[in-house]
């Protein structure tokens, strides 16, 4: 067996490689030699070989064969072997490996070694890689070493305890009584480690804060000594005595002083002293000041001190050092909720930060701007933000536009301004506008009936001006408006300012959208709907509209083709019904924020009502103009797909067998059973359309089985599940019935899900449950389940029965496997 290469030689050889292939071949050869060495149990050179493995590991090559060898080195009696062995264990093993168990014994032995350096190796390894099992096994040994007289060993043991608490919080009991005496130690390493340990215990178990409150006076004293003490060469950093310890103590004070008046008061003076006396010409002084400010803002400190803190942040904000500006924005963002007015004073400076070239600073500044918007400053701030939107890096555009929409929704001074802002964002951010913004905006436009003509004129102009059709969200909103309010577009707003638009120009525009190669299919679907609606709004343009639509009945896009064919059929065969079918949509209600108290978190996020444009789970089936709740049942005609089947699932269950082609016909069945006279029979040629609904339904798992979710005092609620196995979204169709002989009114179903899910509830089909199950209320719930874990739903149901308000709660977790896996 030849003497293996030295580590130094290996490194040199690798560095001299000209190509990656050379490097690989050298490493392959070396690895083979190392493995041979290991196989022959060569203990003399094991250390050298493991060191080489560590280097190879760092270069990113496989190194698993070194794991066991590192463990063998640990049990060696030689210090060199141990040193490399423990280093290897820390680098190569992570706590999931089973070999970890093998280590526990060596650690235990070495922690009792007579040499403090061997003890140190064991403690260091334990502190860095401790697993749950190790924590349980070795906690008593660590506790013993925390009482050791040797500060070098003690500080390491304390930090091990820190790691143990992090891993197994219930182990902290043993360490609590040690905290106070350890804090009295003179050694800075020990003090620092103890402060870290106490901090960790308080974080893991907030109730610990009360028992550690008695330490506040000790902490204050240590901090005072640090500030008052003169120059001490051992711990000095740029003229400041042990900044590390100072920052950690101030951090711990923040935790202990939170919501506690007495402790806060005890800290008041010392914090004021630190805030005024700390030298700020160097980074390290600013680090202390920064921590002090955060603590002052978070505890119940005196108002004078808070003013001082915010002023420090103001000074930070003007600092030429980018890092300081960054932390200033960061802390203003944290304090904005506690001290709105104080932060508001720095608004202009924050707005200036939006011109910074550094994305880290931009991100904070943008978030802070949004947090600072209120009804008095919204005009100015949003103006700045829109100009930011036009020049910012692309990764900010989506967030920025969503933020502006939200702020406008909340604080807009008037609807005209709101619509103008919305339009500016649409034209500035273009396709970076998030999908959910489109239905939100349509909703807004519909709800403000006085602005219909203004909005449609503005949108029309925007389309004419930006004639390349690249901004899909804009075209979608505009198409919807043109279709819905085409007549008002022509007549203009009542207060003058009329732009003359000819009826055929509008159709030409929509025709161009439909023919453009830039617009996507969702946009085209909006446009074709608009053309259809305009055939009613502009009676003189009927033929033109019909021609445009007919042209697309051979579209390669399934969705467009289907719409075109159906609409053509409506023209030809059921022209009598056309004007009724295409009536103006009922005006949406203003979004009310307090609607669903319980799931308020998700509540904000969902599109306010009804307009579900792109139901992800079933492809692009939904007609963009399809109201789900606002009852216009006729509109279902436009949509033969999932909505019809899901909403009326209850009534027509027999026909919604998965994959059944007859699905397409359920409109026909529907019209017979529900509202016969209103409906025409299903257009014949629909069977001939190779509809994608068929595909999507065959692909999705739809269970005809009914799951009882709630059954109490005559109220029965059932769930039906529907899910496309490839998506994360589970659709729940809820159906509620009343089996008693008195009718229920004001029926409201609310739901909440754990944080890892997202919940979206579409509006229910009604709020009245008639007696004896004579009707049902249907509602669709969408659960996004990115982690594929079993969902849980908590329900809150309220209704009125005989003038009495009844509130019921329940939970449902019997989700079958296929709904979530």
């Amino acid at each position: 067996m030849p003497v293996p290469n030295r580590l130094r030689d290996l490194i040199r050889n690798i560095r001299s490689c000209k190509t990656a292939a050379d490097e690989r071949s050298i490493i392959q050869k070396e690895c083979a030699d190392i493995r041979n060495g290991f196989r022959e149990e060569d203990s003399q050179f094991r250390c050298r070989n493991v060191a080489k493995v560590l280097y190879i590991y760092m270069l990113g090559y496989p190194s698993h064969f070194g794991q066991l060898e590192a463990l063998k080195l640990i049990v060696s009696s030689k210090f060199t072997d141990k040193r490399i062995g423990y280093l290897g264990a820390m680098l190569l093993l992570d706590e999931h490996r089973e070999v970890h168990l093998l280590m526990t014994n060596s650690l235990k032995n070495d922690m009792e070694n007579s040499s403090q350096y061997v003890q140190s190796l064991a403690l260091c390894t334990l502190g860095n890689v401790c697993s749950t099992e190790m924590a349980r096994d070795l906690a008593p040994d660590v506790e013993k070493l925390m009482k050791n007289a040797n500060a070098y060993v003690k500080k390491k043991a304390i930090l091990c305890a820190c790691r143990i608490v992090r891993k197994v919080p219930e182990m902290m009991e043993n360490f609590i009584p040690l905290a106070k005496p350890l804090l009295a130690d003179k050694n800075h390493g020990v003090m620092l480690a103890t402060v870290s340990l106490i901090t960790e215990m308080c974080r893991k178990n907030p109730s610990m804060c009360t028992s550690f409150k008695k330490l506040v006076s000790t902490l204050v004293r240590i901090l005072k000594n640090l500030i008052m003490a003169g120059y001490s060469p051992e711990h000095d950093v740029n003229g400041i005595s042990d900044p590390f310890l100072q920052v950690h103590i101030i951090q711990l004070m923040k935790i202990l002083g939170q919501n506690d008046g007495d402790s806060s008061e005890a800290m008041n003076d010392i914090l004021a002293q630190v805030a005024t006396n700390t030298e700020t010409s160097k980074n390290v002084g600013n680090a202390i000041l920064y921590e002090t400010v955060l603590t002052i803002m978070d505890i119940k400190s005196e108002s004078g001190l808070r003013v001082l803190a915010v002023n420090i942040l103001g000074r930070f904000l003007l600092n030429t050092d980018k890092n300081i500006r960054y932390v200033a924005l960061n802390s203003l963002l944290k304090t904005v909720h506690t001290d709105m007015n104080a932060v508001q004073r720095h608004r202009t400076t924050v707005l200036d930060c939006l011109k910074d070239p550094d994305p880290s600073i931009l991100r904070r500044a943008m978030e802070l701007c949004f947090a600072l918007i209120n009804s008095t400053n919204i005009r100015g701030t949003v103006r700045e933000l829109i100009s930011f939107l036009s020049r910012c890096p692309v990764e900010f555009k989506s967030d920025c536009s969503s933020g502006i929409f939200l702020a406008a929704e909340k604080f807009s001074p008037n609807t005209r301004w709101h619509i103008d802002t919305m339009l500016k964002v649409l034209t500035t951010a273009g396709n970076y506008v998030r999908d959910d913004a489109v239905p939100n905006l349509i909703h807004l436009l519909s709800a403000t009936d006085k602005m219909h003509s203004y909005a449609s004129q503005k949108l029309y102009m925007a389309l004419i001006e930006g004639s390349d059709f690249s901004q899909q969200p804009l075209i979608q909103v505009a198409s919807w408006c043109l279709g819905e309010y085409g007549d008002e577009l022509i007549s203009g707003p009542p207060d003058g300012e009329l732009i003359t638009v000819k009826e055929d120009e509008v159709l030409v525009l929509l025709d161009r959208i439909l023919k453009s190669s830039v617009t996507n299919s969702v946009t085209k679907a909006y446009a074709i709907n608009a053309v259809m609606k305009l055939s009613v709004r502009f009676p003189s343009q009927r033929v033109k509209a019909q021609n445009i639509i007919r042209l697309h009945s051979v579209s390669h896009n399934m969705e467009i083709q289907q719409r075109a064919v159906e609409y053509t059929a409506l023209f030809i065969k059921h022209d009598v019904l056309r004007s009724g079918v295409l009536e103006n949509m009922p005006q949406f209600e203003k979004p009310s924020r307090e609607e669903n108290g319980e799931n308020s978190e998700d509540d904000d996020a969902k599109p306010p009502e009804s307009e579900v444009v792109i139901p992800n789970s079933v492809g692009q089936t939904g007609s963009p103009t399809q109201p789900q709740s606002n009852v216009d049942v006729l509109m279902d005609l436009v949509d033969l797909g999932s909505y019809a089947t899901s909403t009326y699932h209850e009534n027509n269950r027999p026909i919604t067998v998965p994959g059944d082609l007859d699905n397409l016909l359920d409109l026909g069945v529907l019209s017979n059973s529900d509202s016969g006279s209103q409906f025409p029979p299903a257009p014949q040629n629909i069977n001939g359309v190779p509809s994608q609904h068929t595909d999507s339904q065959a692909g999705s798992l739809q269970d005809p089985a009914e799951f009882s979710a709630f059954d109490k005092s005559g109220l029965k609620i059932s769930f039906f599940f529907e899910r496309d196995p490839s998506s994360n979204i589970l659709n729940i169709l809820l159906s509620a019935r009343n089996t008693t002989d008195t009718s229920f009114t004001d029926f409201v179903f609310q739901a909440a899900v754990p944080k890892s899910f997202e919940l979206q509830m579409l509006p229910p089909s009604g709020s009245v449950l008639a007696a004896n199950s004579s009707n049902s209320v249907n509602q669709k719930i969408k659960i996004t389940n990115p982690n594929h874990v079993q969902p849980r739903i908590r329900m809150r149901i309220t209704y009125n029965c005989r003038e009495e308000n009844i509130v019921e709660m329940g939970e449902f977790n019997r989700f079958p496997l296929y709904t979530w896996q």
Partner: protein
Amino acid sequence: MSHKLRQIISSVQPEGINQGWSRKSCKMMKFMLLFSRQGKVRLQKWFYAVGDKERKKITRELVSIVLLRKPKMCNFLDWKDFKIVYKRYASLFFCCAVEDSDNELLTLEVIHRYVEILDKYFGSVCELDIIFNFEKAYFILDEFLLAGEIQEPSKNRVLRAVENADALQEENQEAEATRSILEEFGLS
């Protein structure tokens, strides 16, 4: 992200007070990476359990992000759940991941302190020192940080501990060398 914005905007009501900090579970350094301007990793220290694949992925992504930053930008960036604090010293980047609520300025100080200790140990340190003595760089780091926390605020104490351990290692080796010579002569 839009969700985060929403929280910011909507939590102007008083309920939002003090929620920001108390929710954080543990606060410590998550990992430290040293890499060259060419993106070669020179040292990596992980303070939380993470598998090998994930380590590589994180390293790769982070190295490319940091290398793309311009010199005039600030030393912090938000990346996934972490806050990255990095600083360039000559040809090497020192890069730490900390919690969002951690003190970034102090983390810079920690990096600087580590560089100072390396400098003192090697005597005006350069990248080559760290390449050829990577294990020493680890030993020094292990005396300075432990479990993601600062272990020893005094430069000299860290140095003394490392040097004493080095001395112990050499003693060991000398004893061994003597013994093997004695064995050769059949005198053991």
